[in-house]
């Protein structure tokens, strides 16, 4: 750092733990007038809100699962619009892709003034081959590529004002409703991917399970996840404080959510509801007595969306960044800076000591 010749700088933190003026008495009814003890610091919340509304939000969700598990339908149900195109059958060859493709579709949706760019990343062909070895590789590659693209943008010299965020925030993994246990493919996939992305496992087409079967299935799945060391969202290690832990524990007791998706509306008790109509009754998608879709929607969208994005950007992305910068750097220790910023003069010091011979 350059040395200050004429000026001396010193920092003092006064009472960092105790606020200087504890609790300035409440808000004025009309800010700016009357109440003289009101400074207006809390107006920053309003400013932030305005800025957020103006900028809009981005969300990238990936859906992974075998074909026929209702991935596209669930996306459409979640966002109440046709954000995902169902793989309609025209010819049998087209239906099951020979390879895993990654299809990314973006939509601009808006609700009550809040604009969001939603990107749904579909993975047709996953788990559909006879030999499914390494089927997670293209998906991991895609996720890492998004991190790489963000990293490249970030280390540019001339960077954009807002780097477009294409990183996968959340990966919904569809578990087929066998009622028994997780398949080896599920375990392998979730084990590898839970390290790079937030995974939310769901039991697809849960209307084929009775309530008891559902509960025992969930129990088995949870135990298997725990036995294999798979940390799905919300991850235990990222709980910030006691409140967080309490809320997240409740969620962790309910995962995986048993969901049913539908984009058809039916008349039930005089109301038009989304549901599936069968000969023995109508399954209401948003009824928590019937399925847990509402919990999934609340978790993903209404309460934890920001948290999901934060964990992606501050934890998963940082892990990728550290690994990437270390491998090209060749340094084992992660404490070095990417660029050497110290000017040459700093490194003369150890050599100078050898030349203390001048004292002779």
């Amino acid at each position: 750092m350059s040395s200050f010749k004429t000026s001396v700088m010193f920092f003092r933190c006064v009472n960092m733990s105790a606020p200087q003026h504890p609790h300035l008495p409440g808000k004025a009814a009309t800010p700016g007038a009357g109440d003289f003890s009101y400074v207006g610091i809390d107006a920053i919340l309003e400013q932030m809100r305005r800025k957020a509304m103006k900028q809009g939000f981005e969300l990238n969700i990936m859906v992974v699962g075998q074909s026929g598990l209702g991935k596209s339908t669930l996306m459409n149900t979640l966002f109440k619009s046709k954000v995902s195109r169902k793989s309609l059958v025209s010819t049998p060859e087209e239906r099951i892709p020979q390879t895993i493709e990654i299809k990314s579709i973006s939509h601009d949706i808006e609700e009550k003034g809040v604009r969001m760019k939603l990107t749904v990343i579909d993975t047709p062909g996953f788990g559909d081959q006879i030999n499914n070895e390494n089927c997670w590789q293209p998906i991991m590659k895609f996720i890492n590529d998004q991190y790489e693209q963000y990293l490249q943008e970030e280390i540019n010299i001339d960077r954009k004002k807002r780097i477009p965020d294409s990183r996968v925030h959340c990966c919904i993994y569809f578990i087929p409703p066998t009622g028994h246990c997780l398949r080896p493919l599920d375990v392998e996939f979730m084990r590898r991917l839970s390290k790079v992305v937030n995974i939310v496992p769901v039991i697809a087409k849960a209307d084929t399970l009775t309530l008891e079967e559902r509960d025992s299935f969930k129990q088995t799945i949870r135990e298997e996840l725990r036995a294999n060391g798979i940390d799905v969202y919300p991850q235990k290690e990222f709980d910030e404080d006691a409140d967080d832990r309490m809320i997240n524990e409740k969620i962790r007791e309910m995962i995986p959510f048993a969901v049913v998706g539908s984009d058809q509306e039916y008349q039930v008790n005089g109301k038009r509801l989304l549901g599936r109509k069968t000969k023995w009754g109508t399954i209401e998608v948003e009824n928590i007595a019937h399925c847990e879709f509402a919990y999934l929607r609340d978790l993903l969208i209404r309460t934890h969306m920001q948290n999901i994005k934060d964990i992606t950007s501050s934890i998963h992305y940082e892990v990728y960044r550290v690994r990437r910068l270390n491998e090209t750097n060749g340094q084992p220790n992660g404490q070095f800076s990417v660029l050497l910023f110290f000017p040459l003069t700093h490194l003369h010091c150890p050599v100078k000591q050898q030349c203390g011979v001048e004292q002779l």
Partner: protein
Amino acid sequence: MTPSLLYAASCIGSSSPKKTMAATEIARQAGEGARAVPLAGHVGFDSMPDQLVNKSVNHGFCFNILCVGETGLGKSTLMDTLFNTKFEGEPTQHNQPGVQLKSNTYELQESNVRLKLTVVNTVGFGDQINKEDSYKSIVEFIDTQFEAYLQEELKIKRTLHSYHDTRIHACLYFIAPTGHSLKSLDLVTMKKLDSKVNIIPIIAKSDAISKSELTKFKIKITSELVSNGVQIYQFPTDDETVAEINATMNGHLPFAVVGSTEEVKIGNKMVKARQYPWGTVQVENENHCDFVKLREMLIRVNMEDLREQTHTRHYELYRRCKLEEMGFKDTDPDCKPFSLQETYEAKRNEFMGELQKKEEEMRQMFVQRVKEKEAELKEAEKELHEKFDRLKKLHQDEKKKLEDKKKSLDDELNGFKQKKTAAELLQSQAQQAGGSTTLKRDKERKNFF
């Protein structure tokens, strides 16, 4: 043959992410202009701004203000008045040798918002006889904060979201209420600072100026700033909710403020005011001064925008200049994007080579010095030997002389002894012979008498 696992069907063997990105574009059905889709019901993501705000509240905010101005213009008092609290410190003396920057951090809380406020004061600004270098320490300070943030951002293992941001978000420049025009020190300083920080000029102690003088003063200041190309912070007018009020306020710059922490009873309320024999200046009265406007603009309306401008404009500019200065470029002449990593490797090798060369040089110099010293020492040793020899010889000569002398002395002594014995012998002989003679002589003497 196992079915090949292609990724978007067109990038086998490509390792550069740019190519894979192009492949993804192919797979994207809607490109950058994603098509808008209407929603058939309430989804619920309108709670996103709330989620974002809640997260920020839990995290806390930080805001850093730099107050630049001559000693005695009421900077500390204004800060006290703005934030309605007593920051410590006594008024500074006028005899500072240079401009120092004193920074204090405070934690304020209002309802559920925690703010970490840092107020940096320039101490001794404008007090020296030679003020040429006054602005330098301020610029250095601001650059240091940028540098610290840049270092953190470039670390491999970084903790950006828990980093305490010390970059200056707003600079309040205090103009002395002369009523004429800006001082040249003000112009020079503001010109140096306008590309590094958001400058909000304010006229301090404005109760010293009358209303008509004030309008003229403001016009003069604004025209001087414009003609000198100083870019002060403009309140943003792109958001409709606040565009109007911001635009009006832009016209009132620079704000003429009065600060006071003393309260005076006016009517039946206690208000912050300054009491003079001829009247009372109320701080929060819009007719008396622009304090309310300043507070409104600085805190209640634009605090977030100030922070954003600092990060996206001033900090990016600093970062770009700093990286370019180090020799990093985004593209080389062939328009292929350079990886920062490659450049770093090249620079590092270059640097290590230089370092080694310097080491060699130093080593050689050292060896040289040692040789010289050795030769010197040998010389000295030789001299000493010679001296020793000389002295020894001298000593021997002296010794010999002394011995000679001694010998001669001895000889003399011997000779004398011999003579003595001979004389004694003679005497004894003579005595014997003369013993009788003496007797005879004695008898003769007796006979005589």
